[in-house]
């Protein structure tokens, strides 16, 4: 797993203490007037001749490149080896006196996600990012600064939390910023959808006229109290459904996300029928494997079911949804556990930085088609993993 934040940072010269949002560059020849917005990443060459004017200088790993510390400008740091993934065009948040470095955006990745708040009004049994009751409104300000630094060719940006809509008007500002600075980027927001039950909030989102915005919203059951139980919030089901209806009323794209676990697999076919009958107009349905993070670890006994065991329900659900010509995908699943009839719907959906394969998978010939595992799956995964071998 890639470490997108680190505290293993060693200053090797005097430094300024203020927090900065900056773009990483490897180009020491950058014109002087723009250097102050950049951190120079020094991977090779002679560290003795550092060009002046950059916001900071990062060396990675050993101090080999560092020869004569006394010749250095201010703000030179050495990062741990696990930050070697950093590269040209990445955007980071750097707090030198903590010290703490967070990678907000990686130019080379297809899976950039902006965490906009850690607060949430749901408390899902399987939350991979447990909510915190804290004032983290600074995050939006950081992101407002970071977005203009991102590459204009970025294909897709995710917005995640916590519950992004708790930002209220600040979410609108953030989305407007994305629309303006990244006009050809798809934006995918992960939300519990409850806030969209408020018509005027939904109208504000619609009025942004974002070029390609999709809201991904979970529904865990066709039965209101089961959904409310999974998200641990009374009345959430009604607000979420109303939110979806409102978004579609304003012609916004909506994706329904169903996490499969012990509390949701049993009524999956009924849920599929409910979606087809009531919410046929949504744009995508994703049926997703469980991530072993956060609360899932705490509630493992209530949640874990081997995916092999829910194949009949999953297949039935996919058949119902596709018969109604709904756009359906299966996420986060290993090919060797999936019924072959589901392969067509399987997507490689796990973000690159936390996507792994187990040792059993080493000889497997189908890894390029397989969804693989979340890094967190080491905690618990199916005992039915079998590599596909070359057929002789």
């Amino acid at each position: 797993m890639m470490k997108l934040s680190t505290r293993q940072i060693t200053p090797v010269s005097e430094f300024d203490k203020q927090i900065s949002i900056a773009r990483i560059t490897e180009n020491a020849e950058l014109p002087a007037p723009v250097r102050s917005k950049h951190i120079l990443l020094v991977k090779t060459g002679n560290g003795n001749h550092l060009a002046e004017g950059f916001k900071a200088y990062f060396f990675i790993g050993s101090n080999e490149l560092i020869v004569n510390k006394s010749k250095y400008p201010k703000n030179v740091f050495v990062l741990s080896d696990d930050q070697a993934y950093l590269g040209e065009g990445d955007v980071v948040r750097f707090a030198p006196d903590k010290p703490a470095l967070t990678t907000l955006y990686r130019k080379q990745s297809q899976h950039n996600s902006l965490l906009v708040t850690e607060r949430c009004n749901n408390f899902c049994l399987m939350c991979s990012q447990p909510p915190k009751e804290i004032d983290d409104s600074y995050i939006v300000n950081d992101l407002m600064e970071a977005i203009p630094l991102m590459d204009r060719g970025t294909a897709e940006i995710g917005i995640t939390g916590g519950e992004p809509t708790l930002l209220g008007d600040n979410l609108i500002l953030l989305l407007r910023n994305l629309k303006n600075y990244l006009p050809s980027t798809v934006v995918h927001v992960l939300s519990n959808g409850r806030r969209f039950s408020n018509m005027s909030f939904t109208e504000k989102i619609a009025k942004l006229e974002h070029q390609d915005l999709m809201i991904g919203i979970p529904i865990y059951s066709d039965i209101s109290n089961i959904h409310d139980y999974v998200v641990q919030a009374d009345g959430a089901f009604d607000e979420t459904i109303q939110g979806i209806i409102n978004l579609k009323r304003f012609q916004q794209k909506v994706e329904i996300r169903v996490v499969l676990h012990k509390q949701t697999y049993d009524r999956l076919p009924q849920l599929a029928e409910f979606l087809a009958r009531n919410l046929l107009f949504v744009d995508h349905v994703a049926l997703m494997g469980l991530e072993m993070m956060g609360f899932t670890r705490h509630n493992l006994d209530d949640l874990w079911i081997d995916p092999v065991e829910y194949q009949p329900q999953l297949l039935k659900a996919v058949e119902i949804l596709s018969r109604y010509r709904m756009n359906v995908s299966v996420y986060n699943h290993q090919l060797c556990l999936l019924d072959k009839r589901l392969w067509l719907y399987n997507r490689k959906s796990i973000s690159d930085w936390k996507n792994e394969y187990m040792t059993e998978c080493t000889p497997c010939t189908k890894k390029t088609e397989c969804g693989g595992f979340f890094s967190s799956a080491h905690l618990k995964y199916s005992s039915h993993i079998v590599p596909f071998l070359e057929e002789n």
Partner: protein
Amino acid sequence: MSAIELATKTGSPFNDLNAYNQSLKTGYRLLPFKFIRLDDKRMVLTNEVGEFLVIEQDYLRAIVNKSIEAGSQLYNNLKSKHFLIDDDSSIALELLAMKSRTKMQQISNFTGLHIFVVSLRCDHSCPYCQVSRQSEDKLAFDMSNDTAIKCLEFTFRSPSPSIKIEFQGGEPLLNFDLIKFIVIEAEKKNEVHNKDLEFVIATNLALLTDEILSFCLEHRIYLSTSLDGPEDLHVANRPRPGADSYQRVIQGINRARAILGPDKVSALMTTTAASLTRAKNIVDEYLLQGFNSIFLRPLSPYGFAVKTKWYQSYDIQNWLKFYFEGLDYIINLNKQGYFFVEQYAAIILNKMFSPQGTGYVDLQSPAGLGISAILFNYNAEVYASDEARMLAEMGDKTFCLGNINQHTYEQIMLSEALLNPIEQSIVESVPGCNDCGFQPYCGSDPIYHHATQKDSIGHKALSGFCKKNMAIMRRLICLMEDDPQAKQILLNWAKP
């Protein structure tokens, strides 16, 4: 402190399932639904938007007495399909309203199908002819250009975004010049109106020529023909000089397919007394001719079919026996891996599973009379449907809405002759239909009931329309409940 640290310190921060289940304390209320017996053990529950649930009959009383246990599987199924509502959630009402709107939406499109009877003349002399054709040489039974233009003006008054013009007869190819004239004039008008415009000729194909085919190709015209079964049956049902109706229709189908493409040619069958024992033969003929579906249709009580007593030669029970034999055979074909559809079943299945309404005018509420389909007769009279003019040829002009030369669009569409039967066809309020469990999938056919019972509503206990549809709906639901393989096949026909 993180939430999970808090959790381990204070005991679980998570509530259990029952904490969210209000109905454990406050019970449930029923939402409007209807029920009907499926067989001697089971009932079907249906609601207004067409969702259904099959239950053991003993549970019906428990449901109504509100003694279904909260959280049980039956409770959840009833709740999911909006048969009941409890204090946990009220979104069902919003969803039901939305589903009702979706189902009704097509009514607001208004008239789509416009039938032009370009000639009542015919080269065939079928004893079961339901339109009372005239012999070939009487030009008095052709529509005039002047009438056609007025009918077209009427057609383009329809607010419907899609307009289908169907040419009927008699045999419409006997007046092909008029068809050409109408197609070209309609296309001219459509340059302004910009509708989704489509043409169909209902023809026996006996008079098909290369000239006709190339015109059809150029104007993307569909052909709909009649094929009653194997040669001996077809020729007996559909006599013409030379006894070559079968050869001509098969030749016509193949020539049309070669030039227009297979999707542009379809065929319909009509059941006669001679067909009743030959369901498999008839389906096999459709297989042989390369069709992937068949529409098994009974005779209707109009025209020569009544005069010759062919209509009276079998009752609906005989026909249903024939239909189910055909249906079973077709399902078996599918089980053997050959995709083949019975179209009437497909229409009903679509009504069961699609959130949208279907465009089939005989199973609509209100009926499609005038508001889905309208007919211009050769003599400038306007009728509420194809059957309405069949009745008129028998001397009963009850459903004649006016004359294109004498009446305006408003006079015709607001005539009592149209508004009355439409009002009488709203199954939600028709006696005998209003509490029928199959109501959401059905319609009411005022013309049929007028023809058979001299009353547009009719006594449903005596109605062949009712017997037919209820029997088929029962059978389809039973098949889906009892035969998982048949269920998959039928669901694939539904194409919601």
